[in-house]
């Protein structure tokens, strides 16, 4: 299973970014490969409008089965993500990516949307 995180930095100790569209990084953990990949999303700072749909498109291309984030995607982003078989967990702001992953494994995260 592939799990995506919105994060403020790279690696397991990075904190979950509460923002979806304007998240600084997208982290993808591939459980089968046991591999964490960081995708720099900071170019989104230069996008004046429509940050949500742009990041949603990136998530779509990365094709994870689970997304762990903070506030959750807005309306336009949500309508794109709905096209995918994606479970979105929210309110993980303030956790490290490692803790968020553990909480997810222990069914302690809140399912959004």
């Amino acid at each position, binding site marked *: 299973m592939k799990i995506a995180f919105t994060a403020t930095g790279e690696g397991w100790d990075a904190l979950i970014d509460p923002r979806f569209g*304007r998240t600084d990084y997208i982290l993808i953990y591939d459980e089968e490969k046991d591999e964490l990949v960081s995708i720099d999303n900071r170019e989104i700072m230069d*996008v*004046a409008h429509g940050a949500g749909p742009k990041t949603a498109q990136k998530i779509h291309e990365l094709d994870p089965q689970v997304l762990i984030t903070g*506030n*959750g995607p*807005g309306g336009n982003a949500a309508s794109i993500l709905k096209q995918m078989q994606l479970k979105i967990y929210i309110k993980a702001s303030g956790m490290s990516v490692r803790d968020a992953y553990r909480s997810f494994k222990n069914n302690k995260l809140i399912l*959004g949307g």
Partner: protein
Amino acid sequence: MKEIVIISGKGGTGKTSFCAALAQHLQDDLVVADCDVDAADLHLIFEPHNSLATDFYSGVLAHIDPLRCIDCGICAEKCRFDAISNASGQYTVDAVDCEGCGYCYHLCPENAISLKEQMVGQYMSSETRFECTLVHARLRVGADNSGKLVAKVKAIAKDTAKDQGKSYLIVDGSPGIGCPVIASLSGADYVILVTEASQSGVSDLRRIWELVKMFQIPGALIINKADINPTVTKQLHSFAKKEKILLLPEISYSDDFPKAISMGQSILETNPARWQPVISEIWKAIKERI
């Protein structure tokens, strides 16, 4: 550090007045971000000084190189905003009409058109006559606010609050429900909604609450001018109850609001006896929940 966003959906409800009063009430334990950049007015009360300003670039404008232009007129013919003409004998772009879509740039057979980034204003971090830092922005005439600018203002305010070891970031949010508002809300811990007892007050509150709900941020509601239409105030009560929005003390219509703004004061300065207890009560209720 907790981030509290004040939004209204509708204009003229008293959002900025409450924002200024709360900021003054919290004295020096906060940083304030004015994300209502289209109609920024917190600076009228805060009197920012010693500002550190940075130019802000956003969007592009088409520019035709007269040396490469062969006067084919394709750009002028295809521009959907009628922003290109050769009235002067040469094809030029009207800076006001150009939306920066880039269509002409792609069509020009001579690659004579370039897209230049526009300096649309400045964002700045300022000291104020209160004890807190204010992060705000000034847009040039005709430039519009964007999620990009709000995200920038908020990021600086957040960093400032962390560096200064402050407990709170108070954000005066943008109006409406579009991109700037989403950027205002994104990452917030708590939302204070300010509305008034009018039909548009109700419908704009419903719209903005749909958005807040999407981000799962808890919220509290101030009903301002509650006495001007008791029927609507009742509707607002039942809406808040149904949606589990905390009801903060109701406010009756008061001349203190326009008076304070016209004098460049917060309502706490214009009429402290009347407003100090109200703002204290509001803050107490919110503090318990964040």
